[in-house]
Each structure stands twice: as C-alpha cells, then as structure tokens.
C-alpha cells in the first residue's frame, strides 16, 4: 500500500526545503563519525601491530661469562625441554658485538675505546606460535629463572603488557567517546526532524485528515534521517581519508612511536561500509526518537 516513490520524493523535498538545518545535521553527524572513525582507525592499526610483532616475540637468556661449551650445550638442551619453546639459538659474544655494531651504525666508533668485548653471550628462544603472548612469555621466563649459568632473562613481556593496557585504555576511551557522540548526534538529529515536523505540521494535519496511516506520515521523516546519516557517513569517510593521506605523514615521529614503523593502513571496504551504515543508523534512530510519542492526529 505504501509507495516508496512517495517516500523518496517527499524526503528529498523535505531536505531541500530546509537546507541549512539539513546541512547542520549532516555536519554534526559527520564530525562525530570522524572522531569515532579516527579512534577506530588508530585502534585497528595498533591491534594489527601487536599481531605482526607477535611473530618476533622471543625470550633472551643472557649467559654468564666463562661458561664451558658443555655448560652452554646443557643450557640449550634444557631450553628445548621448556614447554612453549620452539627453537633455541646461541648468540656468541663476538656475534653480539657484531650485531651491536650493525645496529648502531656510525656510533660503533664508541666501542673502539673498549679493550674487551663487554657484551655477554646469550640464548635466544623462539616461542611456539600459541605461546606468543605476554602470558606465554611469562611462562617461559618462569621456567628458566634461577638456572645456573643464566645471568639475566629479558623478554618483550613488559612491553606487550604495557601495549595491551594502552590498547584497552584507548578502546575504553573510544567506546565512551563513541557513546557520548552517538547520544549527542541522536539528540541533534531528533531536533532537526522535530523542526522539520513543525515546519510541515499543516501538511501533516491534512495527511491525517485524508486518512494517512502513521507509517505513511512518518516514513518520509525516517528516510530523511537515514539519508542525512548516510550522507554524513560518506562525508566523514572522505574527511578521514583526506586526514589519513594529507595530515598523517606530518606526524611521522609520533606514528613511529605508536606503530613501531609499521605503515598505517586505512579502513577496509567492509569497515567503510560499516561507518556509512553507522551514520545512517544514527540518522534513522534520531528520526524515530523525534517521531515517537506522536499522539492521536
């Protein structure tokens, strides 16, 4: 009975009849979505980083100087028996020095003054894939602690735990911010639609008079809200992309700190669709809230 053509025609006419109000609503939703979207993008990149670093996570056991070859071999044998250890490799003192030189580049001249190699030999333990987490590392470190010949144990455990905490905090802030912005956006959309209803009250009275059902009267307003939200979602997406391409490169240092040199990625197509759909949903729900409780015509 209800014709989509009428809804679409009436919705567009409504949007055209109040361009300023419509623009304010679209911009407001778009700004909210940009903020939430930026947060989501940051979190997605940080989570990805954690996933990539997982492959490199390892435990290093620094060995005391002066161990015999038998003692070192025994340590390698013990390390292999520890649950979660996939591979164990000895890094000799000269090899450690070589790595250090390669790592610091020109700064290696500092080492020239040292009479003897100060770097210890070490045992590098690669973790089995299922153990590549803070808990996995903690388990391996716990098994090796107190072992004769091991002077110190180092792992990325603290770093991973700190990173996860930061990620959880950011996620919490993101959710809180998202909810607050969604609420504010809903109120703004609801008010925009209320204004539109008020501006067209004569028309609505007449529609009610000639027997229009509530769905027929409300439909165009719901579609208006949905369209406003979807357009705002697309605008937010374009703004985010512009920020990503034009502004982000200016913050290389901060990015390197957060993402450890991993190139940041933009949203995947399904994530872009979700952002636009989120905007449309905000617009629709805002309109529905504005129309709820309309009394007997």
């Amino acid at each position, binding site marked *: 009975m209800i014709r989509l053509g009428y809804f679409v025609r009436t919705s567009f006419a409504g949007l055209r009849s109040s361009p300023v109000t419509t623009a304010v609503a679209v911009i407001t939703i778009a700004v909210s979505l940009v903020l939430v979207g930026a947060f989501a993008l940051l979190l997605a990149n940080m989570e990805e980083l954690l996933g990539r670093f997982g492959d490199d996570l390892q435990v290093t056991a620094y060995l005391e100087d002066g161990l015999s070859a038998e003692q070192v071999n025994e340590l390698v044998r013990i390390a292999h028996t520890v649950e979660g250890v996939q591979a164990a490799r000895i890094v000799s003192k000269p090899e450690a020095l070589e790595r250090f030189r390669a790592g610091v580049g020109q700064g290696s001249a500092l080492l020239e003054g040292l009479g003897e190699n100060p770097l210890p030999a070490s045992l590098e333990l690669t973790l089995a894939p299922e153990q590549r987490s803070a808990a996995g590392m903690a388990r391996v470190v716990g098994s090796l602690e107190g072992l004769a010949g091991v002077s110190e144990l180092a792992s990325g455990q603290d770093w991973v735990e700190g990173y996860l905490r930061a990620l959880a905090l950011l996620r919490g802030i993101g959710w809180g911010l998202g909810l607050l912005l969604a609420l504010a956006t809903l109120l703004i959309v609801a008010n925009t639609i209320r204004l539109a209803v008020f501006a067209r009250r004569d028309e609505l009275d007449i529609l009610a008079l000639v*027997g229009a059902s509530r769905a027929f009267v409300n439909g165009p307003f719901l579609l208006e809200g949905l369209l406003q939200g979807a357009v705002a979602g697309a605008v937010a997406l374009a703004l985010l992309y512009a920020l990503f391409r034009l502004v982000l490169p200016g913050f290389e240092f901060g990015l390197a700190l957060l993402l450890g040199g991993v190139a940041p990625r933009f949203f995947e197509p399904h994530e872009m669709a979700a952002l636009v759909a989120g905007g449309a949903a905000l617009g629709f729900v805002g309109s529905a809230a504005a129309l709820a409780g309309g009394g007997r015509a």
Partner: protein
Amino acid sequence: MSSGNSRGRGWPWRRAAPSPVPASHVAADGAIQIYHVSKSYSAGNFALRDVSLRFAKGEFVFLTGPSGAGKTTLLRLLFAAEQPSEGQIVVLGRNIARLRASAIPALRRRVGVVFQDFKLLQRRTVEENVALALEVVGTPPRVARAKVFAILKQLGLQHRRYHHPLSLSGGEQQRVALARALVNEPEILLADEPTGNLDPGLTLEIMDLIASAAMRGTTVIVATHQLEIVRRYGKRAVRLEAGSVSEDSVAGRVRT
C-alpha cells in the same frame, strides 16, 4: 467526569469491552448514531452536553446555531479528531469512543471533510492537493491522475489543475478542497462552514456541489450559521445552542 481525551490510544493486547450501544440502535440505514454525547475540555465547561442524534445514509443535514454552540466540536468528534467525554458515537458501524488510533485512518478514508479555511497545501498544485487523498490509500499514479481529472472536471476546475492554490479565487480553492474530500467517493461528507469565507454567489455554487454529493448517496452534514442557506435547501436542520440540541426540524417543521 473525565475531560478531554480521557481514553488511552488503545492497547492491542487488551480485549475491547462490550459496546454499551444497544445492537438495536445500530440501524442498517444509520450512517451516524450519537448517543448522549457530552464533550468537555475542563471540568464543568461543556462544548457539547447530552447530544443524541441519528443521521441516515444519504441524508443531507445542516448543523446550525450561533458561534460556540458546539457545531465544530460535533464534527470533530465525527471524524475522530477528538473523543467524546461521555456517550457513544457510531460512525459507519465503528464506535468512535472505542476506536484505536491505528484504526482512525481507515475511518477517515470513508469520511470527507471540508473546512472554512480550505486547508490546502500552498506549495502543491491543485492536482497534487486532490491526489493526496488517493496517495495515502496507495492508488496507482495512473489511476489517481484519471480520478483527479474526473473530479476536477466535475467541479469545473480541470483547467486549473496545474495552478497553485494561492493563484485561485476563494470559491475555486473551496472547490479544490471539495474535490479532495470527494475524490475517494466517501460515504460521509462533513463540511464546517464551507461557505464562511465566500461571497453569496460562490456560496450557492459550493452548496449546490455539496448537495449533489448527497444526491449520489453520500451522507452530508454541513455546519453553518447562514440561515438563508438552510432555508433555501429545505433540508433537515439540527440547531445547537450552548452544546445542546435545541431544535431538530425539516423545512421549518420540528421532527418528531
């Protein structure tokens, strides 16, 4: 006594109470039955008081009386814009006092309404204004266009169909409103001072059009304070004073 809209808008999960209207009173030929209806907007202040009336199908009735007598209130009750504070109203077999909000549109599609101030949409053309009544019932556009053209032709407005209401005379605007009210072929036509804004020549023109609807079987109720019109048509006239029926007559003779 309750005042205003005392009843909720109806809960779908609640079973309706049995109708207090006696079945014998819902006559087969009765388009509208009004039983002891009162309407008050504040305690002790009655717009209508204990009104009982019955209008047959195809009947042409005038509601007369001075301003504030309750004519408009009675009409508003008949198209379910308001509910009675007391009493029962049965319109086309539906009890207004117990009608759910969701059932009102269906009733209004069977009742055409015309007002003194025309209530036309100024931003829409004559054709679009009339088509509105067909759009809400989902009439296909091609059928709607044909129906709108036919009713506009009948009312002598076909050449004005692409004009906007503000470019029309008062009489033409009221004819457009009439076209909108009649295009769905309603069983009841309610007109609230339909000629109140028109000069005498246009008044007769509009009244003749309304009377012709009654001749085609539509129950017509016209609220007016212009007694010369009532006299001219010699139809049933119900006079309201201070919210009560003070006289119910046909061509000046009191009905029994």
